[in-house]
């Protein structure tokens, strides 16, 4: 039995969500846009899912758009709002540590006449709301800041940023994909206009996400060809997945409210971080306390993160380097670089993200396996051994 510590990548579909979905994959197979009975029955499931998600976010059902996932939610939020407001101005403010679904969409707009300001972060990965305020100008139409970072787990002061945006009358998007399973979300407390969430990060199915779009926020759709989702997202709705998302999100929100489960997770997280950082050359990344309860991330001197992840996997421990999903890439993480970690050190990144099924025994076994794996990898790569290779050596080619 393996120990799964990669919940920021995806989570297993929980039984309740699967059971809620099954009728919509079998008897209730209608198209929710149809007039007839089969259509109406499917529509009921979709409407109920929408109501449930709206309630969990403090929103109205009409403000929820179902999408194909977190990436589409982010893309739609950025491009949809920016193009709709493009007559007023063409400036976007975001941060250097956003998910690529935000950053690459902003970069795309940058090639189509928009200016994008990327606000930096401090060494813990925290965004300074004052820096966001300073980046806003009279042409700014959108600010996009994530609620919690997917690589290092740092939780951002989105409510403060939201109040700045509200005062400056600029639309505010929050990527809450990672935060949704753990933090109570209230779109009004955040003063957010657009909020992204994803099904499979909170024990729901893959292929489904949701986007809160505050009433009155103009949005241009990405997909054309139908009036679904109030003309914001054409295409026959994925009813079963929407039901699964709604069910899983409700259960996750319940659990997030339970201090017992939250403190259980943060206890495991702190034990992981403490155990890992006593290994020489292992450094915590992200904020010490202002971080997701399930997220422990480190950089390890003298190793390649991907090698350690493979080594751990062969011992039955599933982890991640935390950065880009590209096969075998060693591109240093943009998040770690933005936090001021040098490219060489950033290559040794390891991200362990806990979940419902993890136990204290998992933490103990993982720390032990990391310690052994790191020792083995360092012994095999003497040139990169931290004791013999001071930081200055990182610039020298390994010839």
């Amino acid at each position, binding site marked *: 039995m393996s120990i799964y510590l990669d919940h920021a990548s995806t989570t297993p579909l929980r039984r309740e969500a699967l059971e809620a979905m099954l009728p919509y994959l079998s008897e209730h197979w209608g198209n929710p846009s149809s007039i007839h009975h089969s259509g109406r029955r499917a529509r009921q499931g979709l409407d109920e899912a929408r109501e449930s998600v709206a309630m969990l976010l403090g929103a109205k059902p009409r403000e929820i758009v179902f999408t194909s996932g977190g990436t589409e939610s982010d893309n739609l939020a950025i491009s949809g709002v920016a193009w709709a407001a493009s007559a007023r101005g063409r400036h976007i403010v975001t941060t250097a540590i956003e998910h690529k679904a935000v950053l690459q969409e902003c970069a795309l707009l940058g090639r189509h006449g928009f200016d994008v300001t990327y606000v930096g972060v401090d060494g813990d990965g925290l965004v300074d709301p004052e820096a966001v305020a300073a980046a806003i100008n009279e042409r700014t139409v959108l600010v996009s800041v994530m609620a919690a970072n997917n690589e290092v787990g740092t939780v951002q002061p989105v409510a403060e940023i939201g109040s700045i945006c509200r005062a400056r009358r600029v639309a505010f998007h929050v990527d809450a994909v990672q935060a949704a399973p753990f933090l109570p979300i209230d779109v009004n407390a955040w003063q957010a206009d657009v909020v992204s969430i994803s099904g499979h990060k909170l024990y729901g199915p893959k292929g489904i996400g949701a986007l809160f779009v505050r009433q009155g926020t103009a949005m241009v759709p990405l997909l054309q060809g139908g009036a679904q989702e109030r003309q914001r997202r054409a295409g026959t709705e994925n009813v079963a997945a929407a039901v699964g998302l709604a069910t899983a999100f409700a259960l996750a929100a319940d659990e997030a409210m339970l201090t017992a489960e939250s403190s259980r997770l943060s206890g495991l997280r702190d034990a992981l971080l403490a155990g890992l950082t006593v290994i020489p050359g292992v450094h915590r990344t992200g904020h010490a306390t202002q971080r997701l309860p399930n997220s422990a991330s480190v950089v390890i001197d003298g190793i390649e993160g991907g090698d350690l992840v*493979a*080594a751990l996997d062969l011992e039955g421990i599933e982890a991640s380097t935390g950065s880009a999903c590209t096969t*075998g*890439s060693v591109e240093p993480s943009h998040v770690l670089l933005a936090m001021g970690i040098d490219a060489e050190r950033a290559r040794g990144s390891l991200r362990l993200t806990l979940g419902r099924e993890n136990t204290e025994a998992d933490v103990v076994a993982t720390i032990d396996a990391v310690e052994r*794996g790191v020792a083995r990898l360092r012994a095999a790569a003497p040139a990169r051994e931290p004791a013999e290779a001071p930081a200055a050596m990182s610039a020298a080619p390994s010839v």
Partner: protein
Amino acid sequence: MSRIVAAMSGGVDSSVAAALVAGGTPDEVVGVWMRTHPFGGEGWEAKRSCCSPDAADDARRVAQILGIPFFVLNVEDAFGARVIDAFADAYLQGATPNPCQACNQYIKFDELLRRGLAAYGADQVATGHYARIDRIDGRWRLLRALDANKDQTYFLWVLTQEQLAATRFPLGQLSKPQVREMATQLGLPTADKPESQEICFVPAGDYRALLEERRGYAGEPGPILDAGGTRVGTHSGYAHYTVGQRHGLGVALGEAVYVREIRPASNTVVVGARDEIAQAQFTVRGRHFVAGEPPAERFEARVRIRHRAPDVACTVSLLGADGLLVETAEPVWAPAPGQGAVLYDGDECLGGGRIAHHDAAAAA
């Protein structure tokens, strides 16, 4: 039970090698594809080599079919420095590079063995090379493949005792048609893949762009001289030529001429007629013996100076700290500085060295 890393390039040979260790032994097998280049950029999709994303897809599919775990090992840094840059530098030194041998020496049997075995906790690496390993008189021996047509020992002479001890060549007893047949029987998607011939990081065989890109060498025209020192033409830059080359010289002397020597310091290319560039004696540097020691101070052997060239009888003498003097029974055609001179005793690959420049030969 031990754990074996199967190096999988996405080609048919390494696919079958992985299948043989996965199916034929009680050992646990882990498939590993080495990423040598960053993906993306112009022409990636078109490249049909072991460095392409398509190759990674093929390797992964084969691993899935064999039911073994599959990982990607990133070796971009080492490959860039030890294979690509070394390739460019060889040309800049007027020598002929040997990238396949460098890839074996520094990537497959160093980076993968050292780092890979640590990461995957394995004991041995299996590759799809056509060669055999045996233990004779207490030493690991590198032997030619049974299929002489496919034998790859010319690229493996650099292996050490330590490396051989940790290596398996499951294809050493097989012929290429047998390997394809096995791939077909196993239903591997790589069964009908064409042979890769060109150098994986030099698309369409044109390395001039690479010299400019990696080392800023654009080439400056210079003289082409004949053996007597008479200028017979103009070249585009000495590094664009290689010893033994015939085409692209633009020299019309009534008979075919070949590059005989390249002199980087004076940007000069020297040509000669066919019989002028054969030699019965040359020296090598960086001598290496697979068994750890030379058979004798002076010994009889057979030598091969390029892949697939016939090997010829020779007498080998140790020369200085790391050199060898090779005297062949009959002249060999165009020994090219930088290329391996690989020594054999029957089926056994004894080792070899890199052919030295003419001036080095004269100085020795």
